[in-house]
């Protein structure tokens, strides 16, 4: 096992410990999903014009969102933030491993572990209740690949946020900004096609849609099968860009970091 795999599995297992929190979180997710489903149903009840998605697709989108909302990178890694603030990050740097890969593996685990706890029961319930429908093998496969790409993208975001801690020390400000951007532009609040048509080019040009909107729309069939490879390629390209940016930023911060103490 490489150190990165070890870091991934340790982080993953430690996050699985919070089961009581997961149960409470599960109930909260269901409740919110119900509210949002009712709001959308009410909007659709009186509509004549054609909409960018039909109600069935929107409901599936809402429940996928409830299942996979941890995909959104809200905050820098708390533990690493603490390390940087206390100066203990110096020990991290002494280790004979690649710093970026180590933090990146942590970020992937942080993204996937809560998901595996929360997503499975919510998906099951929504399938039984008929809120989700069987998308067919091809969209499902596309969605699975795209979801994986989303996890890689999300982890790249997270790691980048973590690295900015070298400059800002307190994660609060960056957390607020990141969460505003990620929440609004990823599609978790409302599916992106509902934003005005004049804004769509901007949403398409930004990386945030790769976190939520792309995999969900592949799954609900709102993105045509022919476009799926391009969409996934764009997710991966953004991941590469963010990883490179993160690596460069890390290299610069390592050069200028001053750790206090004896």
């Amino acid at each position, binding site marked *: 096992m490489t150190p990165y795999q070890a870091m991934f599995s340790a982080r993953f297992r430690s996050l699985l410990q919070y089961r009581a929190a997961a149960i*409470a979180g599960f109930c909260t997710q269901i409740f919110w999903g119900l509210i949002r489903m009712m*709001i959308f149903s009410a909007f659709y009840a009186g*509509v004549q014009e054609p909409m960018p998605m039909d109600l069935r697709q929107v409901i599936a989108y809402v429940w996928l969102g409830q299942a996979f909302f941890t995909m959104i990178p809200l905050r820098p890694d708390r533990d690493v933030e603490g390390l940087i603030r206390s100066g203990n990050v110096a020990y991290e740097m002494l280790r004979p491993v690649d710093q970026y890969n180590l933090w990146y593996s942590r970020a992937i685990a942080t993204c996937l572990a809560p998901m595996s706890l929360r997503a499975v029961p919510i998906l099951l319930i929504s399938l039984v209740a008929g809120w989700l429908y069987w998308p067919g093998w091809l969209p499902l496969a596309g969605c699975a690949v795209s979801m994986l790409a989303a996890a890689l993208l999300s982890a790249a975001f997270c790691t980048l946020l973590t690295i900015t801690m070298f400059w800002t020390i307190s994660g*609060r400000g960056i957390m607020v900004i990141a969460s505003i951007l990620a929440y609004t532009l990823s599609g978790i609040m*409302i599916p992106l096609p509902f934003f005005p048509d004049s804004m769509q080019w901007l949403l398409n040009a930004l990386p945030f849609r790769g976190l939520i909107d792309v995999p969900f729309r592949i799954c609900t069939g709102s993105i045509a099968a022919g476009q799926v490879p391009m969409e996934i390629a764009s997710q991966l390209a953004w991941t590469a860009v963010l990883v490179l940016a993160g690596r460069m930023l890390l290299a610069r911060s390592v050069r200028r970091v001053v750790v206090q103490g004896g």
Partner: protein
Amino acid sequence: MMNSLRLYWRLVGVAFRCQMQYRASFVLFTIGHFLSSGMEIVSIWALFARFKSLGGWQLPEVAFFYGLINLSFALAEGIGRGFDTFSNLVKSGDFDRLLLRPRGLALQVSAPEVQFLRTGRLLQGLLVLAWAAGKLHVARSIPRVGLTLFAIVGGACLFYGLFVLQATMAFWSTETLELMNTVTYGGTETGQYPISIYKPWFRRFFTFVVPIACVTYFPALGVLGRSDAVAGSPSWFHWIAPAIGVAFLAASFRAWCFGVRHYCSTGS
């Protein structure tokens, strides 16, 4: 009583000065809070741009609901944070120290924790409410403004009451508290829209169990001069409904006192 009130203000003053020590952080956090809670209204706006109307309601009316509930919640969250985080006091055993002091417990729990950082949501709710008031085709009159204020106060009392209930539950269990988020944050989300758009069981829950409808939907009907299309409630009721929020707070404090009497410390 006067003594307690003076003490309360002094403690709040201390909290204020303490939070103002980090002025830049305060300003940034307020802006961030303003923006992040403001994203919600952006998505409501986007939906209305697509769908035009929601079950017979227009954007300015929904914005009015939105302003009401967000102001109420921001007030309650700012003043009642001590109860929101009360489970920490119980878990750490620090509540024992409060019990030893010859002052009211509610005062000791709430006053030092008053939060001024929530100004962001408050401002945002105020702005949306002002925008809605400008757009609505409703004659502005003193009774209507009065009812709006009454609804905000009633709503703040209701949310405060929910925080107090959450604190009461902490006497027995500190594990299930996240569930209360469904009625506090979930209640805010629900109250942003007229309650008439929801399913009947859901409407009943937020009218009779957690009376969010009494501090948003009914008074808003009174202010907007509309009649109740789903439940057929009489219009005089719309003008007194927020009182139920105040009564809810009173009942919550009774429950809390009961909890205090049954409190067993966590130990040393």
